């Protein structure tokens, strides 16, 4: 923990079972360290958020912050508490305990001000079937003090042709784009997008990704809830992994993939036999295995130069070298399955 706080690029992995209240020792100063990619002020701070209702789907002691202008991904399995967390940020739900600060405001005390500055796209939140696209956008614009121009927004989101169409006539992708438009019509400083691309075809998903990058380029801070790892990898500056209501990890997607995705795998055919220990003793290497003619080295960090150098010293050349690093998906599965293993073992064996 201490090392992680000192080194902003280090991954923070929290084992919630051994450290039930991981953030109680954190000082407020550590908040700025949590944003490794941009040295900017935090626009959203969640501190020891606790919210339960009726048993499942609650969150416990969730803490993180979002830096100005970044895209923060909130990832985790279904029912992990992702939506609950963003609903508390947007003020739709009141936390049981803990505090939330959005642009210096408390979403519960400053309901109107927070809603004026935070655009929200909900997972479930349909419109009246016979509402027309432009009509509803114009209506929402009238609720904000400094709204965007609805027509400009429609053309930016490629909905100009559909401006007089009924909501029920829109395709899934068009509905999502309208939903984004509604989240942006108040010219928000923060946009919360929940499961934006769920149910979209690959083409529409990619278009939506482009839109999210456009939103960020407008200077809007984005909180993106997703369970698609490719989406998080592509879009997010940082991700917060929530599982069963607790923050399990918080890092850049790259760092999380590398350090928790099972590490880097290096595979090669040696020109001559050599003792395993010359590689196994290298810093960062966790295992050396033989698979047919291949040697597989697994470890963390940049293995290639160290391995090549060690081989060179004993006069062995490496041929057919392949290096693969862990993906965010691997990290996700590893971090979340670790916690579910006790039950799966009972069921499986």
């Amino acid at each position, binding site marked *: 923990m201490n090392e992680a706080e000192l080194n902003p690029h280090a991954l923070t992995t929290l084992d919630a079972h051994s450290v039930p209240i991981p953030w109680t020792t954190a000082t407020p100063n550590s908040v700025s360290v949590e944003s490794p990619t941009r040295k900017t002020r935090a626009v959203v701070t969640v501190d020891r958020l606790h919210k339960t209702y009726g048993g499942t789907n609650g969150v416990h002691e969730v803490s993180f912050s979002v830096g100005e202008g970044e895209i923060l991904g909130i990832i985790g399995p279904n029912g992990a508490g992702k939506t609950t967390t963003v609903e508390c940020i947007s003020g739709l739900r009141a936390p049981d305990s803990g505090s939330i600060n959005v642009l210096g405001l408390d979403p519960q005390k400053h309901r*109107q001000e927070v*809603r*004026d500055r935070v655009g929200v796209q909900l997972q479930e939140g*349909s419109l*009246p079937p*016979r509402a027309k696209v432009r009509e509803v956008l*114009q209506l929402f614009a009238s*609720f904000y003090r400094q709204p965007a121009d609805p027509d400009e927004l429609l053309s930016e989101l490629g909905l100009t042709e559909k401006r007089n169409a009924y909501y029920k006539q829109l395709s899934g992708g068009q509905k999502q784009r309208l939903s984004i438009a509604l989240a942006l019509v108040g010219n928000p400083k923060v946009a919360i997008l929940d499961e934006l691309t769920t149910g979209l075809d690959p083409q529409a998903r990619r278009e939506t990704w482009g839109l999210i990058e456009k939103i960020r380029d407008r200077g809007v801070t984005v909180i993106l809830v997703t369970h698609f790892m490719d989406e998080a990898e592509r879009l997010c500056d940082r991700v917060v992994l929530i599982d069963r209501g607790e923050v399990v990890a918080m890092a850049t997607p790259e760092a999380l993939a590398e350090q928790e995705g099972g590490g880097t795998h290096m595979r090669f055919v040696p020109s001559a036999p050599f003792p395993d220990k010359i590689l196994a003793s290298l810093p960062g290497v966790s295992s050396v295995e033989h698979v047919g003619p291949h040697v597989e080295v697994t470890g963390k960090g940049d293995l290639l130069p160290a391995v090549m150098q060690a081989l060179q010293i004993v006069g062995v050349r490496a041929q057919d070298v392949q290096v693969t690093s862990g993906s965010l998906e691997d990290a996700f599965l590893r971090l979340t399955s670790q916690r579910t293993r006790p039950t799966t073992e009972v069921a499986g064996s």
Partner: protein
Amino acid sequence: MSSSGGLATERIPSGAFWQLVRFEGKMALREPIGIIFGLALPVFLLGVFASIPYMSSHIVPGTNLTDFEVYLPILIVTVLLMVTLLGLPIPLARDRELGWLRRFSTTPAPPSMLLGAQVAVNLVVAAIAIGILLVGSVVVFGVSVPHQLGGFVLGVMLGTAAMFVMGLLVAAISPSEKSAAGIAQSLLYPLLFLAGAYLPTEYLPGWLQTVSNLSPVGAARQAMTDAMQGTFPTILSLGVLVAYIAVLGYLAVRLFRWE
């Protein structure tokens, strides 16, 4: 409700509420279930009664009113029930089921504004429907202006308020559009009966007449009938209406869920 709406709308741009009323009005026109029942029914019933000359010539024994005049308050109660049980709660329950109320609650506009707009739209429909009935009665049936005009207006207003609050309570307790429609139907027919729409309440046994007098529809009808006969509505009928407004209103506010 208007007070809580007024308090919360302080900071959102003025004009937002009227934009919303216009929007909800368009939605109501595009799916005009409440409007059809609320507006077409009075016109139809006026037409039917117009074709029965006896209705406006025969004086009901024991009163100074014609048959049509006895029926007029019942017609007013009927269109109010159509608007408040069909036009108001069913779209509201659907909006909640769709997540529209939830979507709306992410904006700076307070959710009570949406409720206020729905009430406003349906009040307009109710006012037009009652207007058609009253103008039609005077023009086609030669009904004279009620002797106790103030009492009549009071009866109409309190009856309207009681039935709107009842509609909001239905919206509050219905988890879905289907259940709202079910609850509305199961209230509509007994209430039409208690209002005397099927059978003059004078024919009912005493205990059922008491039930009628203590129902919002019966009390509203009685208040209007009294005023038409020239006497101010009784404390009982006005008290019953006020009690319904208070109790049902309290329950509606307590039980209403935005999602």
